[in-house]
């Protein structure tokens, strides 16, 4: 800084200004902002994770049982899937099936046979076996 621009004692004849931001205060404000952003990012990351399949798989698990038939009630040895997981099972010749290790909460079961399938909403409780009864694979044109 050139000497002529340097503050003179006269500038502070009424005492040193006190309205200037204290460096320590400013630094504290910046750190508080960082802390607040870290908390926000943490919350957002947690929400993203809880919405993921991985979080669902880490929660409790239960079992699912039922019987697959066609529209006339004849048992079908259908394939069973739980959407969003790798879980699958083959129903017995009498149509009965049991799936273990199904993540708890609302799930969609798909039963498929001979090119056609049906989707059923189920609700799994941790540590319990949910019996969804008869699942009928019906071919229909209308939604």
């Amino acid at each position: 800084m050139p000497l002529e621009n340097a503050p003179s004692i006269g500038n502070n004849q009424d005492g040193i200004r006190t309205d200037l931001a204290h460096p320590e205060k400013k630094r504290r404000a910046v750190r508080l902002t960082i802390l607040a952003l870290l908390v926000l990012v943490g919350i957002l990351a947690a929400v993203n994770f809880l919405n993921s399949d991985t979080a669902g798989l880490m929660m409790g698990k239960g079992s699912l049982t039922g019987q697959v038939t066609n529209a006339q009630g004849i048992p079908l040895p259908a394939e069973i899937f739980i959407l969003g997981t790798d879980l699958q099972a083959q129903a017995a010749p009498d149509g009965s099936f049991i799936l273990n290790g199904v993540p708890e909460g609302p799930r969609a079961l798909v039963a498929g046979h001979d090119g056609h399938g049906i989707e059923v909403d189920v609700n799994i409780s941790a540590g319990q076996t949910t019996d969804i009864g008869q699942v009928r694979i019906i071919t229909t044109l209308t939604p």
Partner: protein
Amino acid sequence: MERKTSESAQGIVEYGLIVVLVLLAVLLILSMMGVSLRVAYCQVVTGLGFETSYCESAYCSDLFDEGLNGWAIPANGGWEVRDGQLCSNADGWNHYAYNTCSYQKPPSDYIINIDVATLFQGNGYGVFFRLQDYSANRPSGYAFQYDPGAGGAFVVRKWVNGYEINPPIVRKVIPGYGWYNQPRSIRIRAQGDIFTAYVDGEEVFSFTDSTYPEGGAGLRYWHNSRVCLDDFSILPLN
């Protein structure tokens, strides 16, 4: 003096950290809202009046002038390139064709466009979208069906491991529609969990489903359908 220099450097690091954290928060919020970064970027760039090849070029395209390159056809075949078009040539239940490019490049949101699709006979054909791994030849995803066999209707079905799920997600009957020998353009828009189908530029229907948040594209026909398709492309949303 040394102490002041140290404080100044520390401030820059802290401000940099704030910028990074704000960006991270914005990305997480966009992710939660299901917004594609590419789409957001292209909307901003296009809105500002700029044109970039990044935002305009097709993710995948096929004019069918190089045979069946770019398509995985299962062992039962049923497809051939004839006069520069992809055509069905077999009877039987299901014949699939999987677009291999669509598994490598596109993001989850896109538009599938078929400029010319002509059905000559049979129950119909379908366009798979958000199609999952096709290696086991058991398609999972959604299929838009040009389906005179379903009572003369446009239909979307969910597919799970090779099974088409009943009932369809959506079905629209169009009485008196000219299903055969008419070249049609097909367009399917997939954005987040909202899907819209267009035929000849007119919206047929729109539906919402969150089962398949991402995936590629493919084709199918069934029974004795005879269909030819040309100028297939997968485009960015904007």
